[in-house]
């Protein structure tokens, strides 16, 4: 049970039930789709870039609590950040959810996903939005966590 509470922390449940920035951006400059064929999770991520800066960000889609909350918290964390900052956060986030570090000093709220490292098969859920972000930034089309 303690593992479960570690995974499904209140903030995660809250963001999965009331995802923030859950909308398509009409003026998006970049868009990417992410898909996890294993569980059917799908998200579309919209970015409005101003130069190297993420001026606005939104997402839509359907998924499990972990992937939805992860996408929601990602949008909150990245609004206003530069591309380089976003990439650095992804590296830290990835290390956190795969149990390679529990430091994640710069992750802020995103540290709430530390419990994922106890559930290796859920890592894909937690990182789907991030892989999709990477594709959007690189101008790719569809991300998959398979």
């Amino acid at each position, binding site marked *: *049970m303690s*593992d*479960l*509470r570690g*995974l*499904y922390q209140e903030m995660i*449940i809250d963001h999965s*039930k009331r995802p923030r920035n859950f909308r398509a951006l009409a003026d998006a400059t970049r868009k990417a789709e992410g898909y996890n064929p*294993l*569980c*059917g*999770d*799908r998200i579309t991520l919209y970015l409005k870039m101003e130069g190297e800066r993420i001026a606005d960000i939104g997402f839509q889609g*359907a*998924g*499990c*609590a*972990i992937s*939805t909350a992860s996408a929601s918290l990602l949008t909150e964390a990245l609004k206003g950040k530069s591309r380089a900052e976003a990439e650095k956060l992804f590296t830290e986030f990835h290390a956190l959810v795969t149990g390679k570090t529990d430091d994640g000093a710069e992750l802020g709220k995103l540290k709430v996903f530390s419990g994922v490292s106890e*559930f290796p098969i*859920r890592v894909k*859920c937690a990182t789907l939005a991030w892989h999709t972000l990477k594709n959007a930034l690189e101008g790719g089309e569809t991300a998959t966590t398979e």
Partner: protein
Amino acid sequence: METETETQGRTFDVARVRKDFPVLEQTVHGKPLVYLDNAATSQKPLAVIQAEEQFYLRDNSNIHRGVHELSERATRAYETARIKAQEFLGAKESREIIFVRGTTEAVNLVAQTYGRAHTGPGDEILITAMEHHSNIVPWQILCEEKGARLKVAPVNDRGELELEELIRLMSGKTRIVAVAHVSNVLGTINPVRAIVEAAHARGIPALVDGAQAAPHLPVNVRELDCDFYAFSGHKVYGPTGIGVLYGKAERLEAMPPYQGGGDMIASVSFEKTTYNTLPYKFEAGTPNIAAGVGLGAALDYVNAIGIGKAAEYEAELLDYATGELERIPGLRIIGTAREKAAVISFEMEGIHPHDVGTVLDQEGVAVRTGHHCAQPLMDRFGVPATTRASFAFYNTKEEVDALVRGLMKVKEVLG
């Protein structure tokens, strides 16, 4: 006064049956294992594990090619398993039993041999909306190659096949009808006898995907009169890596071979090769001999239990589980066919199946979550995925209760 259940419970001694399955005696995350993922693969009784072990300990050798004692023993063991499979399916002859890797390979074999030989541009292959990907994709590959079209008969809201619609879709262009005997998602038992009859009346052969039927229903291919019947060893309490394709002898005789290689030939020269007789024509290369032997042991085991008795007991479990799950607020069962095997797919309002599966796992309850290799069916019911509990004759009502308690925990954690 005795209830009916108690009377039936006595005829089926589940506690004794469970002792035959060593894997069931363990804890997972500190809770007793409740294995409800039998539609994915069933557990193996000790008799099967020992049959494979004994084969490797004593008899291991290649088959059909040595003159030595071990090769003879191995050949005998493998061919005995074929006869057991023949009897299990009620087939007329053992040469109608082709050993394959599983249901998937069986369907591919028919699509690539019978299908390729008989399908041309504008022809049609007829399936249903509740097929497993393994009874969809091989036909799509065939259709793509030949310029043929895949036709799909619909299912109704209960998850029952719309039989009239299927029959209406049978035309002079239909080259084969391929249907699941039992749906792995909905549990629906299809009226296979009626389907085969309607197909034959129009001169169309029928293939039945029996992956989910063979473990749970008595099957007799001569009564069904189907042209092909496929099942997987690992779902009928046998090993992985072995399965059966039954085909009527006259159909198989007329078909070109599947793969080329050793064992499937009578003679080879660079000018001309003549193929071996049935069933070997379709069995190129060294097969999974030990798994074949294990499958034989599994079929013996199932026969000793009695598949009819097992089916009765599983029906009782299904009734009980359905009643208990229906009482959980916000839970919707997908697949409420009147003729149903012990498979329950469901969704929980506002909670993704993946999360349901994770919480249940922490409670020791193993279920499957996802699209169950039936994405078109998920689309039909408007869900991205479901949670599925699938039962075997070694499951108990207490395990159903554990599932229900687990689902309460799901609501507590995620509700």
